[in-house]
């Protein structure tokens, strides 16, 4: 057997063994098993990158007429690089979890579900066709649901898990239609066999509709507007899960899928997609998502919520790059973002752990002195996220800004978002890590154990070094990141945005005890996430009420009243009449009636016939 199948088998086996055999009784073994299996897959992925293995032949899975999806894997640079990201961050998150979840009551279930997630994510990354990808797409949805709802005893966690699952379902519905349209129009499910010329021959409108329907899947999974609502709530899950699934890998799967799809269908230099004007919709959805999410992030007080909105905003960037037909730039940003955002989330996890599960930044403060390693790695992550020159985020954001350069609207949105990003991240730093402790929990905070800060340190290295490890970048072979420093207007805009952002954050939040903007009317809109959740709740309620009224009317009046009820009332009414006037109980009355009946029958048979 080809050793690459172990990439699938190991995590699945680990999940099965943990869930069915070990259970909570052997929780420590379960934790180690999950971590080791992920470690081995990481080693395999690295060996694969070095060219040790060849991709195995595909399995036939179903053969029904023209419908014959296969089980197979792709071995291009996109898949290999993404495997490194998934397994690498997955491994570090597992190690971090050993510390973070040490005393959790259902540790075994946690590690079992993490293994299930690793299996599903591997499937998405390596899938050789859309059908297989869709299966694993749903599986990551499931494992995400299970992990968000890990502490299901808490009502908010159970609700958040449900919300994530349902929001994803909406996107997946469009995705499935899109897959079917693409497979018919391009002649194949398989990524390697799609015919872009045939695809575009259906005309730009139909082709655009198919692309946008496929993009629906990314809207759901990568939490773009208007289905972004689930991601901030997903922070109810354990923090390492937020780092792995809801920041670095799963939410980026939408971007990965779009890049994979564009490379398959686009032909040389994506020329075919240039003929589909509707692709621009993708760029605008990404840009608006990144803007709206960044605005919301400026007024959040929960450390994880800030990072969640920041993730939304960065995903918006990546989607915008994809929509601008620069999937390589989007994937490059995905790659750098995965490292530094996982770092930030794990850092926040360490902070939360040290502050006795306090998540409100206004109850922290002074953490730089209390837990220096966590704080310094967190600041490195922040610098990367805010695109300080010579960090990874700087180069990848530069790439996206370059792609948007000849579209002034998108370009200035992106620059404005970069400014907001710096603003809210340094707000977080000034409030939570600098200044004085604002709460007893923050005063008691101590540096976390090495098993938790070691992953932080490794991720911090990656946050700085990732752009230079060209081999790892999940993109086309032809793509090389631009790691030189240029003096042009893109760089000026990027650095200008950073300076304005940090200056605003310094002026407003340095040494403050409470948020000076909290009572501002506009800021309240941001804090309440533009009331989108309330708006959806209203729509659902309104729509549901009307639908329920119609259904109620049909059921109560038409079916119950007229059809079923009508017949019973007819029979009952006739019966009542006969009972009252015919059923006297008098024997002779009956005899007379039956005699009369016989006479009528005789008359009818003898004379009327």
């Amino acid at each position, binding site marked *: 057997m080809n050793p690459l199948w172990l990439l699938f088998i190991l995590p699945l086996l680990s999940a099965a063994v943990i869930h069915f055999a070990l259970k909570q009784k052997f929780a420590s073994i379960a934790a180690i098993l999950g971590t080791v299996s992920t470690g081995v897959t990481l080693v395999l992925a690295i060996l694969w990158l070095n060219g040790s293995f060849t991709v195995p032949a595909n399995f036939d899975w179903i053969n029904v007429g023209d419908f014959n999806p296969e089980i197979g894997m792709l071995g291009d640079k996109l898949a290999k690089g993404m495997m490194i990201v998934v397994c690498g961050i997955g491994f570090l998150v597992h190690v971090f979890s050993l510390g973070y979840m040490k005393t959790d009551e259902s540790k075994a279930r946690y590690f079992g579900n993490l293994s299930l997630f690793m299996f599903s994510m591997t499937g998405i990354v390596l899938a050789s066709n859309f059908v297989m990808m869709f299966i694993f797409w749903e599986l990551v949805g499931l494992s995400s649901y299970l992990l968000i709802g890990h502490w299901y005893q808490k009502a908010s966690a159970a609700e958040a898990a449900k919300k994530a699952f349902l929001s994803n379902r909406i996107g997946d519905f469009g995705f499935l239609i899109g897959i079917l349209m693409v497979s018919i129009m391009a002649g194949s499910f398989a990524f390697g066999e799609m015919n872009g010329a045939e695809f575009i021959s259906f005309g730009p409108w139909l082709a655009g509709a198919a692309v946008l329907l496929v993009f629906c899947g990314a809207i759901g999974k990568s939490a773009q507007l208007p289905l972004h609502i689930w991601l901030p709530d997903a922070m109810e899950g354990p923090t390492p899960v937020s780092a792995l699934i809801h920041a670095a890998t799963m939410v980026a799967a939408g971007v990965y899928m779009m890049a994979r799809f564009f490379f398959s269908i686009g032909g040389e230099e994506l020329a075919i997609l240039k003929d589909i004007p509707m692709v621009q919709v993708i760029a605008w959805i990404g840009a608006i998502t990144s803007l709206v999410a960044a605005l919301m992030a400026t007024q959040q007080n929960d450390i994880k919520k800030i990072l969640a909105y920041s993730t939304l905003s960065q995903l918006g960037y990546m989607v915008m790059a994809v929509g601008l037909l620069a999937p390589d730039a989007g994937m490059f940003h995905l790659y750098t973002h995965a490292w530094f955002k996982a770092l930030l989330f794990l850092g926040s996890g360490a902070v939360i752990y040290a502050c006795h599960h306090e998540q409100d930044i206004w109850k922290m403060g002074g953490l730089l002195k209390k837990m220096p390693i966590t704080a310094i790695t967190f600041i490195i992550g922040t610098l990367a996220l805010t695109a300080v020159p010579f960090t990874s985020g700087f180069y990848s954001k530069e790439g996206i800004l370059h792609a948007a350069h000849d579209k002034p609207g998108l370009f200035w949105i992106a620059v404005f978002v970069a400014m907001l990003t710096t603003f809210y991240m340094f707000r977080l730093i000034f409030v939570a890590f600098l200044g004085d402790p604002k709460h007893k929990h923050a005063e008691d905070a101590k540096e976390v154990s090495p098993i938790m800060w070691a992953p932080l340190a490794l991720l911090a290295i990656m946050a700085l070094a990732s752009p230079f490890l060209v081999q790892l970048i999940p993109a086309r072979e032809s793509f090389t990141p631009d790691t030189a420093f240029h003096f042009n207007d893109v760089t000026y805009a990027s650095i200008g945005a950073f300076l304005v952002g940090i200056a605003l954050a310094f002026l407003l939040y340095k040494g403050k005890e409470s948020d000076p903007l909290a009572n501002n009317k506009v800021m309240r809109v941001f804090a309440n996430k533009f009331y989108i959740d309330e708006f959806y709740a209203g729509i659902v309620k309104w729509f549901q009420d009307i639908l329920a009224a119609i259904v109620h009317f049909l059921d109560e009046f038409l079916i119950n009243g007229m059809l079923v009820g009508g017949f019973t009332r007819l029979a009952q009414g006739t019966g009542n009449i006969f009972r009252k006037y015919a059923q*006297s109980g008098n024997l002779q009355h009956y005899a007379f009636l039956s005699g009369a009946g016989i006479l009528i029958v005789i008359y009818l048979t003898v004379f009327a016939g």
Partner: protein
Amino acid sequence: MPTASLTEYLFFSGLLFAIGLSGVIIRRNIIVIFMCLELMLAAASLTLVAFTRANTGDTNLPDYDGQMLVFFIITVAAAEVAVGLAIIVALYRARKTTSTDDLTALKN
């Protein structure tokens, strides 16, 4: 002696049947009703006999099938009277009445 024709027999049996039926319908005493029922049976038997006599065919002999049936009717009627009177006696013992006006348990 002039014999009666088939029509006269049938008319007579029809009359008997009508008298029996009207008795069943009109009279209130259950024993009288029972007697009227017997009258209706007799009317039916008379019809059968009349038809056998009229239906002679090639041999100029009556068709005895009908008369056989009449014997059966008379035997069954005898048995039926025994059962019927027993029911009436049991009914009288239970209800102390033979008037159908008082026997309306089947109402509604």
